[in-house]
């Protein structure tokens, strides 16, 4: 219990102090709320529009989780395929990098053309930006298997499947979770950009608030999106702690 307190207390204290300082600075300098609303104004907007923000957050969260799940499955399968031979890796890995360098803002309209307005385009956007860290990290884990253990498996006549299931995938698990932690944050970004063009969720709340020049609501929506990213990161971190407890 004290361990949990020690982990949570420092970032919470930092947040509270930074919020207090921002409130004081914005009030003292009389900054226009259109440019930078005070934390209390953002809190007020979050309270007043909670009926809009929470359902929107749930929609975004659904798309993020679906996109991240797709990234996990596709990323692992792609990494296994790429690790199967150096030739396959050389032939296809440059195309996997496409997912890393593609500007999601530029291709989001294409996703709407391909998948139509709504949830599917948003999930596709979350998937595209989050799949590469899963591929790259899992591949690095599969490539980093202890050569002596590969020898051991050879010595006892293990086939490709036994090697993959009993050695390579478990060995790559810490790398996979590193990739998933990065992917979780990116999936939130991808989903919100997807929502800017595909509609729905927190992305639409941000656009609407901007049109109405409600900067406090924009900040409140951003805060909710950040909360989603943090929760997702914490969930991945928690799962990895359980899965890697023996390491």
């Amino acid at each position: 219990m004290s361990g949990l307190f020690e982990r949570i207390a420092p970032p919470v204290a930092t947040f509270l102090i930074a919020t207090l300082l921002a409130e004081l600075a914005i009030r003292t300098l009389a900054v226009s709320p259109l440019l930078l609303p005070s934390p209390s104004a953002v809190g007020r907007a979050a309270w007043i529009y909670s009926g809009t923000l929470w359902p929107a957050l749930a929609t975004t969260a659904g798309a993020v989780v679906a996109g991240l799940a797709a990234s996990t499955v596709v990323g692992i399968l792609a990494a296994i395929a790429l690790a199967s031979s150096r030739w396959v890796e050389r032939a296809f890995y440059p195309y996997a990098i496409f997912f890393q360098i593609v500007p999601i803002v530029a291709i989001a309209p294409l996703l709407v053309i391909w998948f139509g307005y709504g949830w599917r385009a948003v999930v596709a956007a979350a998937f595209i930006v989050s799949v590469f860290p899963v591929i790259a990290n899992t591949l690095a884990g599969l490539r980093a298997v202890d050569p002596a253990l590969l020898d051991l498996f050879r010595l006892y006549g293990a086939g490709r499947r036994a090697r993959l299931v009993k050695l390579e995938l478990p060995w790559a698990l810490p790398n996979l979770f590193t990739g998933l932690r990065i992917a979780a944050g990116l999936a939130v970004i991808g989903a919100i950009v997807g929502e800017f063009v595909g509609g729905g969720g927190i992305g639409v709340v941000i656009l609407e608030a901007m049109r109405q020049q409600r900067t406090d609501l924009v900040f409140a929506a951003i805060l909710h999106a950040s909360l989603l990213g943090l929760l997702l990161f914490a969930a991945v971190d928690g799962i990895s702690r359980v899965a890697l407890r023996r390491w």
Partner: protein
Amino acid sequence: MSLRGVRRSFCSPAEGTVEAVAGVDLAVAPGEFVALLGPSGCGKSTLLRILAGLDRQDAGEVLLDGRPPDLRPGSPTRTPIAYVFQDAHLLPWRDVLGNVALPLELLGHAGDRCRAAARVAVEQVGLADAGRRTPAQLSGGMRMRVSLARALVTGPRLLLLDEPFAALDEISRQGLDDQLRALWAATGMTVVFVTHSIAEATFLADRAVVLSHRPARVVLEHRLDLPARRDAELRADAAFARATGVLQEALRRGAEASAPVTPR
């Protein structure tokens, strides 16, 4: 088991073609305990890997029971070899019993049989109480014991060990040497033990084969006429000191050989 005229070279970006093993002939009788002794980097491990079928010689012949080593998955003529590496190399996500049972699982045995055999092997190396512990919860010496149990669990006829205790402190090392010698005496398997420690080779083996500096060549084959039953007192015995002296001299002669390097 026999090696005839075994040669092996490697291409190194820094050194060009490096000859690791140069025409080694060696015969090991069933049930014999042979130590391969040589300076670090002389090609001992390469020779052991060739024996295990994990590496291929460029020239020469390796025969185990009259056949080349066979590691093909599912092959009915698979060679019953076990190999202990320089470090324990355990699977961190498996407990001790799970690690020891692994070879039997890979050979396709049923789960309950694997666990039962693993328990017996773990008891053999004196870790009966540590079966549920993970590698992270074990000391270096205990991890090497698990590695030894993993090698023994299949009941191999040939056990190959590549400087398995080199990283351990002297007390742990001597304890494991005692245990290995006792296990060999109890099972009657053939053992080839690679080491660069003269005292370890003398204590463990029936016969020591001294290799030269790279490329490995046999400098001396020396039968160690010491009592079959060996304990800590033997290390202070005059016969033990004489034997180590002979090996020391052979190692010195072997070290004078230089490594011929063919530039690329």
